[in-house]
């Protein structure tokens, strides 16, 4: 499938024990991942989490330190970038500035000596609605148009796997929304496997079938967007995908279908099915939009978790909703989103309020309390100095 011939459909991608170390730091600790054929998969994470490195490894632009990459069941780990049935839409687009748009799009077809390269290139340009600009140079196009050309240049080759490296990063918000929809429809139309790398959680959630949240060279959690949002597994995921109110405490009671967690005297009930761990010291949370604001103490019931009274310390209006910051003694600061529907209390700063939520909306996380740097073995000077300082400080503290 590599050189010559079109892929009839997308192929699945399998990463087995993938590892990438650069001198001085580890980009990818260990990655095991299977992306089924024809799916739209998003790798989501903050900058420096290893997502772009993963993409470059799959494209063949970097060499793996350890592990294997399989595309459609075939091991491509040791093949060169130009031998892989993979195409990339680069973050910078990387359109060849000395070629016209049509030559850019036909470039890959010509290299593989595919018949009627020009006709196919025009067809791909029609798909992204830019055929009328075929004779122009990339510099004569706007950012959004260049992005679409970059997409056409990649999909015209019908790669088994299409890699997208934050291709929408340089566009403004409105154009980005439009391009997200277009990308999604192109993917459904051509049926290729898409691997999309992004730091924009909204982009990942709206476009992808499956999202993998990456952090510090590892996948923290993988699943459908709604599942990730509803049931985050770690603190990082809970905070990176949207916002969360998190509380840590000891599990004090275990019922057949729920657990009770003691947060400095307040009990919070979480359904067992929505908790990743059901014993010991755990972190539980709830999304800000699931909270209900009340000016009087709500009636206690088995279905509700109630916190309060607390004080509103900040109110910020953002159109569709209002964000309240509420300080509750012994619990901490809570974020609450209230839809501006004209119902419910409208409170100002300093008001005394209660916060409640339905038990079914809470979730329990899996991870332990943060244990510091994940890559202590690396030996660059900054890390060494930091380790030395921590060691010294703990020594001094003990004396």
């Amino acid at each position, binding site marked *: 499938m590599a*050189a010559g011939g079109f892929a009839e459909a997308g192929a699945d991608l399998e990463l087995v024990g993938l590892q990438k170390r650069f001198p001085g730091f580890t980009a990818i600790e260990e990655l095991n991942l299977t992306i089924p054929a024809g799916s739209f998969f998003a790798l989501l994470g903050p900058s420096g989490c290893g997502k772009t490195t993963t993409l470059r490894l799959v*494209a*063949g*632009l970097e060499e793996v330190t350890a592990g294997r990459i399989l595309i459609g069941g075939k091991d491509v780990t040791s093949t*060169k*970038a*130009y*031998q892989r049935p*993979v*195409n*990339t839409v*680069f973050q*910078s687009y*990387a*359109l*060849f*500035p*000395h*070629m016209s748009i049509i030559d850019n799009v036909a*470039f*890959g077809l010509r*290299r*593989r000596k595919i018949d009627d390269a020009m006709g196919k290139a025009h067809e791909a340009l029609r798909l992204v609605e830019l055929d009328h600009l075929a004779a122009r140079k990339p510099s004569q196009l706007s950012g959004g148009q260049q992005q679409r050309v970059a997409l056409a*240049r990649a999909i015209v*080759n019908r790669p088994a796997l299409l890699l997208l490296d934050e291709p929408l990063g340089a566009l403004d918000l409105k154009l980005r929304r439009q391009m997200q929809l277009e990308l999604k429809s192109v993917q459904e139309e051509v049926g290729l496997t898409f691997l999309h790398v992004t730091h924009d959680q909204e982009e990942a959630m709206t476009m992808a079938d499956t999202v993998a949240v990456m952090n510090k060279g590892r996948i923290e959690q993988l699943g459908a967007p709604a599942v990730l949002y509803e049931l985050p597994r770690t603190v990082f995921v809970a905070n990176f995908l949207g916002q969360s109110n998190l509380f840590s405490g000891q599990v004090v009671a275990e019922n057949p279908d729920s657990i009770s967690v003691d947060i400095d005297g307040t009990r919070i009930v979480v359904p067992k099915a929505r908790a990743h761990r059901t014993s010991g010291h755990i972190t539980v949370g709830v999304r800000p939009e699931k909270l209900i604001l009340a000016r009087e103490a709500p009636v206690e019931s088995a279905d509700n978790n109630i916190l309060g009274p607390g004080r509103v310390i900040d109110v910020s209006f953002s159109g569709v909703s209002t964000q309240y910051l509420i300080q509750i003694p012994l619990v901490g600061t809570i974020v609450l989103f209230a839809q501006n529907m004209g119902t419910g209390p409208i409170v100002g700063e300093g008001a005394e309020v209660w916060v409640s939520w339905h038990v079914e909306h809470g979730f329990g996380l899996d991870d332990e309390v943060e244990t510091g740097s994940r890559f202590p073995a690396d030996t660059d000077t900054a890390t060494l100095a930091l380790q030395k300082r921590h060691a010294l400080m703990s020594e001094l503290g003990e004396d």
Partner: protein
Amino acid sequence: MAFSAFATATATEQAPRRASKVALLLLLPGIAYLMLFFLVPLFSLVITSLQAPAEFGDIGEFDNAFRWENYTTVIGQYSAQILRSFLYAVLATIFALLFSYPLAYFIGVRARPYPLLQKLILVMVIAPFFISFLLRTLAWKQILSDESPVVAGLKALSLLAPDAFLTGTPFAVVFGLTYNFIPFMTLPLYASLERLDTRYLEAGSDLYSTPFTTFRTVTIPLSMPGIVSGVLLTFIPAAGDYVNASREFLGGTGTTMIGNVIESNFLISLNYPAAASLSIILMAVILVLVTAYVKRSGTEDLL
């Protein structure tokens, strides 16, 4: 209040006019220089090229005239030298390009992660400039001379016939031209390769093109401005060069170039009109060749 308002109004009004006066003033030395040292000599060269020998004058005495035959005469007389000049210049340019491109690519692209190495090699390219051009060419004459270890070594290896020699041959002249103009080729190439965005190369390999095809279809077109200016900077002076081909340096009687002919006509046979018309022919041919070349390589914006 009123005064200050008035003052600012006039100031903003006058600002552009004053700026253009300053610009003219700054341009004046340059324009005067060009008038004095380019237009006047060029004009007098054209006049000289049309002069006829004075009727009862001595050798080297000429009268103003319109002797167009001067041109046809020198073309007929020196066509071999004219052709040889351009052949040598083309060869030297090709060799300099073949030598300089990999060098410039290495400095500008491969050595990017090592700025110190980059600077070191650049210094090695430029350092020979600190020694006189004549001295360097004379040094090559020594190296290529019959008694030199180089020639002896080549003979010992049977790469050179026992009675063969290097100085005075076309090889030595083209070699000298190539050597002397390599920095002029390397520096513009380096300047354009140094700015080469390697992401285009990655895009090339991502689109199924082998390293060689990427080089041919992406790297070379993107470094074309450097190639064009390097070729011009090498070809133009090489075509008119008279040092390397002269008998005192690397040349011989069979390697005379147009520069040597002009020199001997001006300084030895005192045939000023012939020398002047040859200079103008050289200039015209270079102008035509360069224009055609630049047009073909699609970098008109350089001119």
